[in-house]
């Protein structure tokens, strides 16, 4: 028998220690959030998740308020929506936001909330351009645009608690507040290892991927789930693809083994796919020692003929194969089967021993 | 209606040509169709033809409809004098030798009889009957006959008369006389009012025919359907809608099953219909709303709206097109076909279809004109029947080298006046019809914000001269009375209707204009005379 509390008038179970946000979610009620990052210490910074708790003097942040037995929580009252809307308006005015030129357009929690709350005019004046830290656009991978930062702190949590790279933190105070690296250096001169986790979690357009700029908006993109081709961790990732080209790579949330994380290789190092040096046709070495391009038919005929010749002359064990540790399982299976069944040798190995 | 008139003449009762041909033809004759309001997208093509492609337009209509603005000639006949006007046009064409002699000789029959009758309808004689100036009539006749390709479009202004079938045949007479049937850009084109009237007819929702107009009285046909449906079938043609109502009143029909119709607002002489329906022992209605008819039922079944189910509609140009599900139905509502299957199963005649597509597959096997129509083929664009095989591209226009019945049949017709005309006591002529913003009995459009904003209530169109004489101001409530009943609505002073005529729509149950209309039927088409009845008008 678990404990219960009253959610919008309905008795709802919760596990002791659970925050209102999670308990409500289990009860089928979604509460909007901005700063909340699953699995990290709640900061209660954005105040978008406000709910009404009976007997409390003010509205409470659902992400950081633990449920108590019998607590009565209301998530949809006029007061709640009024307060949330006000906070959205304040967040909008804490920077400058024109989605026309923002790479997060269509994939922005702040924009979603502005739409949900039907905001048509900005009630408060936006921060003056002169009060905003200049955009950091020096490294090839990550763009930091402080005009859109809502100081939610998710990037800091991702860097410190999720990846434990400890490259960034909240810096300065009040109107000067800024997310900073050690010594407030640009990313590329700092401890940053470019895992890009901060970009992944930024709910707005303050941290964006430089290479993705201009390649496609979220609604134009197809997401394809796959496994990272680099190391043996086998991170689960989404390839964002438009017109047959990768726009960017993000991590799959809630899936083993990486649970929403990627490293610099998995996230950013897919460029080789588009290298000019990719092999595009079979090549056959001519008598003069030079390669020439050949058709598949020609190349396959040549290989088959040569294999047969060698088997006939020197027997099957005169042929050996090296398989590939980067290939898919199906390829490795086929390769060994080919050598054993077709050629008739067990001379098959791969480079894992090296 | 249209089916009867055109079937007798050509052997097939449907729009002969395609909507798109209108835009590129040489002349359009529009009669009894307020196209821009009732078929706005066809209206758009007619207007484009005139403005952008030099097409000539003749409008024959008692009301000054929007299309008049685009017309080269407008003939304003008195309501109910259409046969006379068409005879007059043919009189001029024959007298001046402007008709297509080769076509008439090679592809038609009955010309001599026609010639004899129309000879009496000189422009001057027609002017007396219809009020159309003789000179205008001559001009229109010459213009029509002079066009290489001319298309006639008509709608309920032609059919909703006691002479409806005759009216339809008159349009066909004129078209054949000038060799305009069986050619691209020509034809006789009834614009069907409701979205799937064509399909309902094609599918055999008619008392005398099975799908594809195969007669129930024909033994071979019936045997074929008995084999296909594994049931014994009746050889006796059934009752038409109006006859069903009458039979309900007389006790011959005891049970009535109504799918998605609201006869209690659409039938003429409503008061009477209500009494008839009350006599039924059992009435079952399936619909999306609790309509006036549903309120009288013993069982009401909630049905899906079109956006909640799969299927096909056939538009007015015989084009079969897909209907697709975009929404989940509310509550426990079901698609009409599922409901029929449910009832039939309980009656011991299993109809076990898993999907609309399965039904369509069965339709193809018993409906030759639909045999080549599959859901796969409809993915991209609809197909126009006849489409007899899966490799057939569909048929853009009918009767190309030969009429379905062989030779086209001219019918010599005399003018017969409407059943009820204005007199001392009921001095105004009432026509009913639709307006742009609403549809049929209004169950759908009166529940839509935009249309209601534009047209929130029923209006009585009154000519300024009449209004002044009766001391009626724009927007004032007026009472309209006929021999059958009375309704009240606001006056709308406009020159659209001629002096002495008023116009009302039938979309609103607050002002059910069918309390007034005359249930006199066309003897063949069994359609009531909605376009003419006599009323009196006074300030309320």
């Amino acid at each position, binding site marked *: 028998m678990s404990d219960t509390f009253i959610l919008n008038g309905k008795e709802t179970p919760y596990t002791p220690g659970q925050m209102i946000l999670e308990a409500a979610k289990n009860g089928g009620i979604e509460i909007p959030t901005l700063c909340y990052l699953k699995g990290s210490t709640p900061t209660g910074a954005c105040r978008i998740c406000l709910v009404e708790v009976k007997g409390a003097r003010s509205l409470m942040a659902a992400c950081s308020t633990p449920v108590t037995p019998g607590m009565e929580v209301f998530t949809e009252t006029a007061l709640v929506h009024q307060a949330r809307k006000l906070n959205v308006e304040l967040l909008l005015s804490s920077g400058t936001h024109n989605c026309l030129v923002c790479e997060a357009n269509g994939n922005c929690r702040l924009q979603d909330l502005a739409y949900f709350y039907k905001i048509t005019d900005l009630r408060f004046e936006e921060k003056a351009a002169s009060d905003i830290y200049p955009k950091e656009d020096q490294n090839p991978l990550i763009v930091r645009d402080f005009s859109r930062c809502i100081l939610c702190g998710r990037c800091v949590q991702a860097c410190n608690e999720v990846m434990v790279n400890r490259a960034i933190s909240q810096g300065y105070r009040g109107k000067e507040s800024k997310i900073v690296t050690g010594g407030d250096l640009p990313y590329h001169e700092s401890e940053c290892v470019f895992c890009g986790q901060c970009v992944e979690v930024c709910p707005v357009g303050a941290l964006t991927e430089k290479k993705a700029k201009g390649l496609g908006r979220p609604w134009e993109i197809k997401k394809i789930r796959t496994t990272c081709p680099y190391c043996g961790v086998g991170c689960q990732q989404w390839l964002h693809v438009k017109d047959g080209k990768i726009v960017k790579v993000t991590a799959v949330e809630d899936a083993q083994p990486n649970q929403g994380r990627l490293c610099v290789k998995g996230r950013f190092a897919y460029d080789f796919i588009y290298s000019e040096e990719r092999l595009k046709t079979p090549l056959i070495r001519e008598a003069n020692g030079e390669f020439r391009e050949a058709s598949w038919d020609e190349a396959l005929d040549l290989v088959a003929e040569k294999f047969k010749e060698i088997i006939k002359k020197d027997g099957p064990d005169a042929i050996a194969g090296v398989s590939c540790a980067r290939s898919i399982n199906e390829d490795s299976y086929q390769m060994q089967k080919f050598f054993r069944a077709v050629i008739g040798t067990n001379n098959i190995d791969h480079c894992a021993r090296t | 209606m249209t089916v009867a008139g055109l079937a007798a003449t050509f052997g097939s009762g449907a729009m002969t040509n395609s909507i798109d041909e209108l835009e590129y033809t040489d002349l359009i004759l529009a009669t009894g169709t307020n196209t821009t309001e009732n078929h706005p997208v066809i209206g758009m093509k007619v207007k484009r033809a005139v403005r952008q492609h030099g097409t000539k337009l003749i409008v024959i209509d008692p009301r000054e409809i929007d299309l008049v603005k685009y017309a080269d000639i407008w003939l304003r006949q008195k309501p109910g004098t259409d046969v006379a006007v068409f005879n007059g046009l043919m009189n001029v064409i024959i007298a001046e030798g402007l008709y297509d002699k080769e076509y008439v000789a090679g592809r038609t029959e009955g010309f001599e009889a026609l010639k004899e009758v129309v000879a009496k309808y000189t422009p001057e004689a027609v002017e007396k009957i219809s009020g159309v100036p003789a000179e205008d009539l001559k001009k229109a006749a010459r213009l029509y006959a002079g066009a290489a390709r001319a298309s006639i479009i008509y709608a309920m202004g032609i059919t909703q008369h006691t002479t409806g079938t005759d009216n339809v045949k008159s349009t066909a007479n004129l078209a054949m006389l000038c060799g305009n049937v069986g050619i691209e850009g020509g034809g006789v084109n009834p614009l069907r009012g409701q979205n799937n009237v064509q399909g309902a007819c094609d599918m055999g929702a008619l008392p005398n025919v099975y799908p594809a107009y195969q007669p129930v009285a024909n033994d071979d046909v019936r045997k074929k359907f008995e084999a296909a449906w594994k049931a014994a079938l009746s050889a006796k043609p059934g009752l038409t809608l109006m006859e069903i109502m009458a039979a309900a009143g007389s006790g011959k029909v005891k049970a009535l099953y109504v799918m998605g119709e609201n006869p209690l607002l659409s039938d003429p002489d409503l008061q009477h219909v209500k009494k008839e329906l009350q006599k039924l022992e059992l009435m079952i209605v399936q619909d999306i*709303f609790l309509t006036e008819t549903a309120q009288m039922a013993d069982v009401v079944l909630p049905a899906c709206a079109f956006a909640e189910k799969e299927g096909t509609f056939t538009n007015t140009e015989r084009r079969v097109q897909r209907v697709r599900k975009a929404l989940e139905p509310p509550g426990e509502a079901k698609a009409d076909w599922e409901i029929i299957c449910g009832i039939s199963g309980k009656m011991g005649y299993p109809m076990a279809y898993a999907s609309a597509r399965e039904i369509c597959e069965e339709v193809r096997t018993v409906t030759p004109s639909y045999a080549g129509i599959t859901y796969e083929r409809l993915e991209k664009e609809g197909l126009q029947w006849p489409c007899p095989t899966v490799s057939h591209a569909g048929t853009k226009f009918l009767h190309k080298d030969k009429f379905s019945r062989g030779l086209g049949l001219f019918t010599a017709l005399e003018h017969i006046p409407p059943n009820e005309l204005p007199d001392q006591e009921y001095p105004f002529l009432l026509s009913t019809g639709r307006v742009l913003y609403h549809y049929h009995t209004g169950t759908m459009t009166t529940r839509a914000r935009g249309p209601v904003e534009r047209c929130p209530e029923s209006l009585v169109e009154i000519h300024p001269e009449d209004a002044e004489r009766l001391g009626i101001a724009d927007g004032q409530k007026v009472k309209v009375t006929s021999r059958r009943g009375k309704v009240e609505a606001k006056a709308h002073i406009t020159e659209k209707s001629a002096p002495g005529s008023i116009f009302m729509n039938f979309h609103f149950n607050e002002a059910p204009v069918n309390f007034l209309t005359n249930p006199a039927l066309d003897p063949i088409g069994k359609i009531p005379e909605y376009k003419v009845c006599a009323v009196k008008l006074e300030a309320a």
Partner: protein
Amino acid sequence: MDKKITVTIDGQEVSADPGQTILEAARNQGIYIPTLCHYSRTTNVGACRVCVVEVENARSYVASCCAPITPGMVIRTNTPAIRAAQRMIVELMWSSGDHNCLTCEQNGACELQDLVYRLQIDKPRFPIEHPAYGPDSTNTMITRDLNKCILCGRCVRACNEIQVNEVLDFANRGSYAKVGPAFDADYIDSACVFCGECAQVCPTGAITFKQAKFAGRPWELAKTRTTCAYCGVGCQIDLYTKDNKIVKVMGNREYGQPNEGSLCVKGRFGMDFISHPDRLTKPLIRRRKGEDFQEAAWDEAYAFIAERLAAVKKEYGPDSIAGLSSARCTNEENYLFQKFLRGAIGTNNVDHCARL
């Protein structure tokens, strides 16, 4: 059949029909040239000039939507100079309007936004100076915010050339130009018949569907192609839905006949009835005459009907039963309905309201 002619576009030899514009020839080849004022089925007016290309030996850049190809023409569509010219044009448009997509309903479906993105413009180099027109939102269907209007004239041509409703026109040529009905009236006070064509063709957020506002962003909507359920034209429509509600109804030029992407007020704005609270949701049975309806389960309703119909048939014969089919139901349903009366009941008493 006219002979094909050959031109060179971006170094590629292209054969095209004489009379085709450069734009058409390029698009047939899959070559992208941006456009804004160009709209199929309407005259080319060359108003926006974002479609400029370089033509060898021409004295200046050429608006590709209006220029016919000539044999041997050498055309370049994507040189840095062309991109710079396009950027300049788009920056001018942007700076002469009030564009913040955060609060614009067109966000995600806006052709101006697409171009800003495609040309990677961060900021216009001109000061933003836009007129301060008041909105036209005095009707429930169409909203106009001319501060976002780029004066492409598509709405004017759609109203006049596609729908031929002849309501919209340009007023005050030049820098104070404005589109709208005569006498600068709001739509509701004009001759507008609310076909919605202008809103459908407007490339920006200047003319939008009011009932769609805040009902869902373009990328959140599902699209289902179906056939309009009103008149016999049978227009092909796209229902845009979200959360089981219709957000908006659009025509689609790609579907061809019968409507080629155009709609009327009923098909466009007449769909509210579907989600109306008056909808029937449960079977209702009146057990005895004069009694009230009671809600029932489907099985109960079917059994009740079957039993009563069987009783009537037994006592009075099949011809004492009649059915009214519906011109509003599908072909499949009409087919089944008559099959039911003929096959299961044994009567030909079946008709529908087509006669009305």
